[in-house]
């Protein structure tokens, strides 16, 4: 039973309210996840702080190589924002993979992170870009990499009274190859069985930098550093990418152990890894659905 409902118009006001409830208040962004949990009874908040009217959290800004996404930027805005399509298309593709048009019109960057679903579609792209969350609470700001903020399925290190205000990423150099893929039962509305994002830099044939994230297979999002390190310094080839796929599969098995879903997921991890790297190498013109 909701006893109190607040709708602050500024961040400062929101932080004061959150502070006064010592962490017992629930933050509501757009509600596309929260309302589902209210309805099924998983969540019974007594106090809701609805931050959806705070304009200062809806801003996309760029300063030199730093791109800052306000936590209330919606998936639709990310998918259509020309500067993002041009400079960081992997974010636009990932945003477009979320839910349905109705969900993308509401759902937010900050909500996707705070909800910490292992199947979140935007998170792998943000992690591949080494995204850093800016967190605010009354009396202070801190920055924390997304990989440290999200610690387990549906669990973050957000402290009581703290909210995500921005996510910052560095704009990759213009020759960086990028790719995003989602594997689900159908494109629209399906929760990802697996997803992944990849950034790749080549000097001639030589791989100089690579960032690889396979989502929805590990408890918290992470770059596949072992695979990345294996690839760096080597000349790119189809054979090398096959080896990377096999390594990614082994890595997932080592992290998660054998599960009922392994028979399906492990071969898909392998192919997804190969396809992400191929797409980043050869040019991923657009997000094509899988």
């Amino acid at each position, binding site marked *: 039973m909701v006893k109190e*409902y607040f709708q602050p118009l500024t961040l400062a006001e929101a932080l004061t309210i959150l502070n006064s409830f010592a962490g017992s208040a629930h933050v509501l962004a*757009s509600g596309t996840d929260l309302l589902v949990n*209210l309805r099924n009874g998983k969540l019974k908040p007594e106090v*809701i702080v609805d931050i959806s009217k705070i304009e200062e959290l809806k801003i996309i800004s760029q300063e030199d190589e730093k791109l800052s996404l306000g936590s209330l930027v919606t998936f639709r805005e990310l998918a259509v924002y020309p500067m993002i399509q041009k400079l960081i298309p992997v974010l636009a593709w990932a945003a477009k993979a979320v839910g349905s048009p*109705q*969900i993308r019109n509401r759902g937010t960057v900050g909500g996707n992170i705070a909800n910490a679903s292992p199947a979140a579609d935007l998170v792998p792209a943000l992690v591949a870009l080494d995204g850093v969350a800016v967190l605010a609470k009354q009396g202070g700001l801190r920055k924390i990499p997304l990989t440290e903020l999200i610690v387990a399925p549906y669990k973050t290190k957000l402290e009581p009274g703290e909210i995500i205000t921005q996510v910052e990423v560095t704009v990759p150099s213009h020759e960086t190859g990028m790719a995003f893929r989602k594997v689900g039962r159908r494109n629209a509305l399906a929760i990802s069985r697996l997803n992944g994002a990849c950034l790749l830099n080549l000097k001639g044939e030589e791989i100089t930098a690579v960032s690889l994230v396979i989502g929805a297979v590990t408890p918290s999002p992470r770059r596949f550093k072992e695979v990345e390190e294996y690839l760096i310094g080597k000349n790119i080839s189809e054979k090398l990418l096959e080896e990377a796929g096999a390594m990614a599969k082994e890595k997932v098995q080592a992290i998660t152990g054998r599960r009922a879903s392994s028979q399906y997921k492990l071969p898909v991890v392998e192919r997804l890894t190969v396809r992400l790297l191929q797409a980043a190498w050869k040019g991923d013109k657009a997000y094509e659905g899988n």
Partner: protein
Amino acid sequence: MKEIKVNFNLNGQEITVMAPPDMTLLELLREKLDLTGTKRGCEIGECGACTVIIDNQAVNSCLVLVPQVEGAKVITVEGLAQNGELDPLQQAFINNHAIQCGFCTPGMLMSAKALLLNNPNPTREEIREAISGNLCRCTGYLQIIKAIESVCQ
């Protein structure tokens, strides 16, 4: 808790309602305002039957709390017809037999309307994407796509 006051524009009229803050827009429309054109389907944002337009964007009304529409412009299927004349989109659904059981129809209309408000001349692919969040269990998608195409410029 006590009800709170919310002001918004509904189908062209400024209205003020009192509602519990954990009431969804879907519940408000159907239970308090007797606008039952908006359908209650899955209530978890997967079927699209409850789609309405908020500030020119298609939205699942089951995933919006009433206070969140404060100051917004909301259009429901009841707001499509003007002065007793069906919206061209509604007439196109009739002409193209884009209705079987009819349960998904209001949501389909609102998703299509939102598309046309933002993009009056969409491609078939854009139409398919725009209604990808609306399930039709009678599977009459082709007629629906044809109906939407028929009103494009």
